[in-house]
Structures are given as structure tokens and as C-alpha cells.
């Protein structure tokens, strides 16, 4: 056995070093299926010390490292560049401590997002960032991707909810960033690390802010016959000054998929769009806001506004919405989801543009997205077995991203750059901005060993990009 490999076995134990080719193949992808890469090994550290020793050892051999939680990234964040070692955090999944005085939860990186809320809920608190993959995705991954979710409209993204983290640097050194007091002293290094997609450091312990559950929470589903009406209604809600906890939209194609999925709620099949709205806070305020929102919906010819009648019904509506991406498997062999953001007043125009793009390329596009913050998720349906299909979808995708950038938006709201948007990064940033980011990367990881080939466009990519 090679020295680099036998030392890894010494650090974590033989069962936790994987080199079987078929096993490695199961680690070749994450939630993004347009690319893949074969790792040279997968290592599963049992604690932070082991993780640090592994990174330090790999640094000595200049072997690249890619951290992985549940592998649910939608931009290829956890896809290894060929020959990298995957650091899989599935064994480190304990909630270490709940500090009720400071309202902080200390967790391992492999803790599942939804488990944090499950631990807090009985005591009247929750963990606010709720990506749609929350039943599986991990806090370590959320840290790397700065994950969002429907309720980030009101509560903010992961960045706003992590106060401190223990991080391993490229050379295996461990540092603690941030503080329990919340506000950073000096430069906000933690802020630099959150959302850096594993390219600057790997978190081994995280301290999260808990949020008090609202006293009142009401969930509405507004059913529309025209997409334009629904999107104008969204713009009006935002303009009214109300900040809903969540404001989501699904169009006809998306509804047809989720209604065939695991959590059908019974949306009529001739709907053009549904808006899912949640309003929470003090009871009296929420009741006023609900009235106002229903009035706004009616001004835009809503067919019907339903309200969830129980906690179970509310949970069902959300499960229906949150499994939408996976449900695409029911109507298409593959999908390519985008994550562009547009200024919210452009929503009606953006949806019309997406519709025109679908027609122009002769593809189907379903829309499921965070309407409230203008974060689009067009799901471009295709069949990977058909190369022409793949090309059409990629070209259409680029057109949509170009539209977002041109209108003052962004190429990504919450899914990250990963491998997927490396080309589009150049439209978003100027050369100077890119150079500044490359400087930060060199400062933290001079040898380019942490999650290479991601986030920053580099001349030669080592990951096999299909087709």
C-alpha cells in the first residue's frame, strides 16, 4: 500500500478508508448530474482531530481534498476533481451542546439541517435556514454553500445564523473563526469562509444561532389561472412592505410533477401557478397581514386562496413544495436547475422570458422558486442519453443566466457556483473582481488543494464535463 494511503488508515482506521472502485463511483456525483469526477479515496474521520490529521497528511503529499456532507449540492460543490480525496463527514453527526442562555447550538458538520430544528422545536425555537433538501443536507454543507431556503426571505441565509466555526486550513492547521458574542472583531473572516464552497477551509465544528418560534404562523396557497397575475401579485406583496416568512411559486409543469410525487396536496390540474405564502409573528399583526395579502391576491384575479387548517396540512404543503426538484424524475429522466436572481419587480418579465426561451429551444422548463426574493429556479428538463438535448439545455440555461445578469441580478441565489456556473462567473464579475477573489484563494490555499476546480474559473479544468 502507498504511504499516503497507509497513513490514512493509521489515522481513521481501515473501515473508514475506501478505495474500492465501485464504492468510489458512488461518490463521483452529488445532486448535480451534468458532471462527475472519480476520487482516489474516501476518508471518513470520526472526529475533528482525525479530520485535521487527514488534511495535514494529504497536504504533505499535495493531494487535493473535497469535503462532503450528504452530497446534495445542486452545483457540483461535492463532486471531486479526479484524484482528490473525499473527506466524508457522515460519522460526525452529533449535536454537541444546546446553550439556552446564549441561544447557541453547537454541532458537528455532519448533523442534518432538519435535526437541529427537531431538537429545538419542543422548546419553542428553530434553526431558520431551511434549504429544500433540509431532511438530508448537512450543516457543514450549508456552511460551505451559504445555503438559503424558503424562509430566508424573512430570516436570512446561513451566513446570518453561524456565529463561530472551527475550520481546518489547507495545511491541516486548525483555526477558530467568529465568536459566540456574534459580532466579529476586526475583519470578518468567518464571513469570507461561509459560502466559499470548501475552497478556503473545512468546518469541523459549528455554532449556530437559534431563532424563537413565532407565536402565530399562517400558511396560504393562492391558486392562479395566469402566471402573469401570480407574479404581479408577488411584486405587490413585496411593495406593500409586508415581509412574509416565505413566498414561493410553482408553475403548471412543476405542480403536475409534485402532485404525482410523495406528497400530493390536491392542487387542481388546470392551474397556471400557485403561490405559497407564510406569514408569521404576533397574532394580531399576522391576522391583519393575511387580510391585506388576500386582498392583494384578489386584485390579481386569484381563483382561490386556501389556508392550511392544521400543522399537518402545513407540513404537507411544505413537503410538497420541498420535494419538487426530486419529483422532476417523474416527468423527465434528467433536469438541470438554475439559480439565477432578478430584481423582484421584473418577475413577470423574467417568467415570460423563460417561457420564450423554452419555446425557442424546444425544451420543457418547470418553475419552482423563491418568488419573494426574486430567486428563480427554472428546471430545464432533458434526457442525458440524448447529446443534442444536453446541448440545447445548456444553451438555454446560459441565456437565462445572461438575462439575470443583464437586468442587475445574479447567476446564483443559493446553490453556489460549483462546477456548474464556472463559465457564467465571468459575466457576473469584472476581471478585477475575479483577480481579487483569486488573491484571497491563494492566501488561504496557496497550493490549490481545497476543492480544486470550483468557484473560480481556471484555464484547465480537471473534472470531466459532459458531454
Amino acid at each position: 500500500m502507498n504511504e499516503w494511503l497507509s497513513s490514512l488508515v493509521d489515522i481513521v482506521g481501515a473501515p473508514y478508508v475506501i478505495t474500492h472502485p465501485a464504492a468510489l463511483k458512488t461518490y463521483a456525483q452529488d445532486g448535480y448530474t451534468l458532471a462527475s469526477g472519480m476520487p482516489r479515496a474516501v476518508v471518513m474521520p470520526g472526529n475533528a482531530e482525525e479530520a485535521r490529521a487527514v488534511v495535514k497528511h494529504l497536504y504533505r503529499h499535495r493531494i487535493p481534498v473535497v469535503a462532503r456532507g450528504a452530497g446534495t449540492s445542486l452545483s457540483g460543490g461535492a463532486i471531486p476533481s479526479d484524484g482528490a480525496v473525499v473527506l466524508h463527514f457522515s460519522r460526525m453527526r452529533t449535536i454537541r451542546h444546546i446553550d439556552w442562555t446564549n441561544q447557541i447550538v453547537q454541532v458537528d458538520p455532519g448533523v442534518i439541517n432538519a435535526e437541529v430544528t427537531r431538537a429545538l422545536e419542543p422548546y419553542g425555537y428553530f434553526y431558520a435556514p431551511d434549504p429544500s433538501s433540509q431532511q438530508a443536507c448537512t450543516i457543514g454543507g450549508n456552511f460551505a454553500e451559504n445555503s438559503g431556503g424558503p424562509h430566508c426571505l424573512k430570516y436570512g441565509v446561513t451566513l446570518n445564523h453561524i456565529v463561530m466555526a472551527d475550520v481546518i486550513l489547507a495545511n491541516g492547521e486548525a483555526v477558530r473563526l467568529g465568536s459566540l458574542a456574534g459580532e466579529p472583531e476586526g475583519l470578518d473572516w468567518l464571513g469570507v469562509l461561509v459560502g466559499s464552497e470548501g475552497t478556503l477551509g473545512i468546518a469541523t465544528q459549528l455554532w449556530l444561532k437559534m431563532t424563537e418560534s413565532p407565536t402565530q404562523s399562517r400558511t396560504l396557497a393562492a391558486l392562479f389561472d395566469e402566471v402573469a397575475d401570480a407574479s404581479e401579485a408577488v411584486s405587490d406583496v413585496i411593495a406593500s412592505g409586508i415581509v412574509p416568512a416565505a413566498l414561493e411559486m410553482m408553475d403548471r409543469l412543476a405542480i403536475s410533477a409534485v402532485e404525482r410525487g410523495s406528497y400530493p396536496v390536491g392542487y387542481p390540474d388546470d392551474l397556471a401557478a400557485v403561490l405559497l405564502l407564510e406569514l408569521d409573528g404576533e397574532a394580531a399583526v399576522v391576522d391583519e397581514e393575511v387580510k391585506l395579502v388576500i386582498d392583494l391576491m384578489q386584485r390579481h384575479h386569484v381563483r382561490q386562496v386556501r389556508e392550511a387548517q392544521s400543522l399537518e396540512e402545513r407540513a404537507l404543503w411544505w413537503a410538497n413544495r420541498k420535494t419538487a426538484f426530486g419529483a422532476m424524475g417523474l416527468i423527465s429522466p434528467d433536469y438541470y436547475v438554475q439559480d439565477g436572481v432578478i430584481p423582484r419587480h421584473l418577475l413577470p418579465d423574467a417568467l415570460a422570458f423563460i417561457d420564450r426561451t423554452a419555446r425557442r429551444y424546444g425544451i420543457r422548463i418547470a418553475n419552482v422558486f423563491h418568488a419573494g426574493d426574486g430567486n428563480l429556479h427554472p428546471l430545464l428538463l432533458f434526457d442525458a442519453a440524448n447529446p443534442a438535448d444536453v446541448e440545447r439545455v445548456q444553451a438555454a440555461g446560459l441565456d437565462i443566466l445572461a438575462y439575470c445578469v443583464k437586468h442587475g441580478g445574479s447567476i446564483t441565489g443559493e446553490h453556489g457556483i460549483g462546477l456548474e456556473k464556472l463559465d457564467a462567473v465571468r459575466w457576473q464579475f469584472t476581471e478585477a473582481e475575479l483577480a481579487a477573489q483569486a488573491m484571497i484563494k491563494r492566501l488561504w490555499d496557496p497550493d490549490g488543494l481545497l476543492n480544486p476546480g470550483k468557484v473560480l474559473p481556471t484555464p484547465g479544468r480537471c473534472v470531466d464535463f459532459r458531454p
Partner: protein
Amino acid sequence: MVSPLDQCVHCGLCLSSCPTYLETGLEMESPRGRLVLLNLWAQAPEQRDAAISQWLDDCLDCRACEAVCPAHVPTGHLVEAWRGESEDAPRPGRAQRLLMRLIENPRGLKWLQRLGRWSQTRVGRSLVRWWLTGREDSPLRLQQGLPPLQSRRLSREQITSNHRGPGDLWLFVGCVMDAIYAGTNRHAADLLRLAGLTVVVDPRQRCCGALHWHNGQRAQAQQWAQENIEAFESSGCRMVVVDAAGCLTALREYPVLLAGTPYEARAHAFSQAVFDALEVLSQHPLPPLPDQGLTVTVHDACHHVHAQGIRHQPRFLLERAGYRLVEMANASQCCGSAGIYNLAHPDMSRALLAAKVRAIPPQAEVVSAANPGCLLHIQQGLAASGTPVTAQHPLDLLWHAYRSQGYLPGGGARE
């Protein structure tokens, strides 16, 4: 048409539902990983090896992933098909084969019952204890999970049919239920009658075939399925009622088992007539009972909660019968029994059992489980841990409650 393997879009939402992934943390022990391996198995035969078949065969077939999959990828069914069709899939061991032989007909079942009874005599007990010393993995360890066995007759011989006509229920007595849990079958008949229904036990019924089907003997399972369908059709009954989660799912999946055979259409009609006794009873107005002074926690059998969506019924019935309920964490996570999985995968099975026993809340005095495999397995784990908590079928709990209140013959006082 999208093929089942292609239906997986790699979202990963199944990972946190998979007991073997949670236990090992390995992607190849997750549903998504197994689909990658199945694809590889089909497309690159030269790469097949024992390690891959082990990862595939570690699947409990608990269906938890199928229940949460947004795209309805039938991962459990696909692994099952692989087990049945692939020559390289691990074959059942000696203990499994013996059990599968015994459940093939009533004569074998009587032997199973006899063996169980002998193992509980003083001599039998010390023999078992002697044999188990230093043999952590022995299948005989399951003996420690047996309920006290007195009966010398199968339940099919104990339950008299009160045949009246087309409204009757065709009580499916199963195999292990028939021999080892004969009392539970009797209780099922009593409770269904208390609910005003008529019950028939058809001597022509065969084992549901689940164990054979899931262990690579599809033809045998198909044969019994056909016999069961014919017997039910000619009985004139309107409903098949079952009290074991594993049998329930197997009977309801006869259309899958018999797909492409001349019996397919009849299997569909049969499948729609199959109900669990807990489903039937919760549709009928049994009287609510006063507090029974016993705290119960419900373990959801995989083939109830994941395969059939049965979750509410046992809780509703137990509460109506006066039991205090307390929820355990991960009630719907597989206990590791998984049919006869525990015989072939002792390590994984033991790890899952330990997690199940740990999750039992301190207030609970009884764990309710509506499947013979779970009952045996969990009871064995409880006995080994030294706790006084016992595992019981919810129908047994219900029967005792209604009997103690004088609703059933011999009632008025607790046994």
C-alpha cells in the same frame, strides 16, 4: 417512459431515511449509492464482485427510501429483483433455508411450533444457553425473543369459522403468526367479531411467499400466490384481513409478483381486497375504554409505515382502548429484523436493534409492534438488555383491554 433507474435524479433526500446509511455513513450503503451500484452491475459485468453484492444485499428492503423519494424510485423493489435474478447475489444460509422449509406447509409449521416449545422447557433453555455461549451471531439467539408458547395447535386449527355469507372476512393466518403467534391470530378473530364482522379461516390458504420472494425463490412465491388468489376467489368472502405487516405488503404486492403471468389481472383484484386488521378495526366503532394503567410506545413496522402508510391506526386503536401512549424517537426506523435479514446480516441487524432499544422512552412499559419479525427481534433485544419492557402485538394489547372490561368471553379480569 422513464425507466426506474433513470428516475433517480440524485437529489439525495433518501439518505437520511436509510437505516444502513445512518449506521455506516457509507454512500454505497445508501439508496442513491445502491442505484449507482445496480447500474454498474448491469452495465459492467466484469466489475462485479463480492463487495458490491454485499453492499446491495445489505438493503433491508424496509422501503423507507421509497416512501420519501420524490420521484418514486422503487429502490427496495429493484434490489429485490436483483437478489432474485442475479446468480451472484448472496444465497440464504442454513438457518434461513431451514426456516423457509418449515413455513412451507402446516406440517412444517407444527414442527416450528414444537421446536419453539421444546426450547422453552428447562432442558431446552439450558441447551440453548450453552449453545449461545460465545456465539454472538447464532440465529438461535432469536429463541430469546419467543413469546411463552403453550399452544400445541396452529391458529388455523383453533379459530372456528362463523361462515354466513358474502360479507365475510378471509382471515389470513400467515406462517410464523400461525405457529408462534397463534394467540395473536385468535385475538384478531375475537376483535373483528366484536366489531360485528364475520371471520372465516380457510384451510386452503398458503404462506404469503414474502420470505421466498425476497430471498430469490420467486417461482415458489408465485405458486403460493396463485393458490391464495384461487382460494380467496372461491370462498365468496369480500376482504382478506391480515395481522402481520410483512404479509400485508406481500399480499398487496401480488400484482408485482405475478406481473406478466396469466394471474396478473386477478392479482390486482385480490390486492385491492387486502386490509390490515388494524385498518379494519379503526374503521369500526369499538367502544372507548377507561385508562388501562399501562404506557405503550409504538414501533412502526417498515411494511406498515413505509410500504402502506399505516401509522395512525395502531396509535388510535391503543388510545381508544385506554392505553397511555408515549412516542419513541425514530419510531419508523427499521429494527433490523427485516424478514430473515437478521439471520444473514447479524452485525448490521444487531446495530439497528441496539438503536431501537435505546430509543425506547423510560416511561414505556410495552413496545407495540405489528409484525412477527419485529416482535421476535425486539423482544430478544429487550431480554438481552435486562429491561422488564416487553414487545407485544397491538392486537394482543387491544384484546386484553377489551377482555378486562368484559367485552370478550372470559373477561372481567386481567389474565
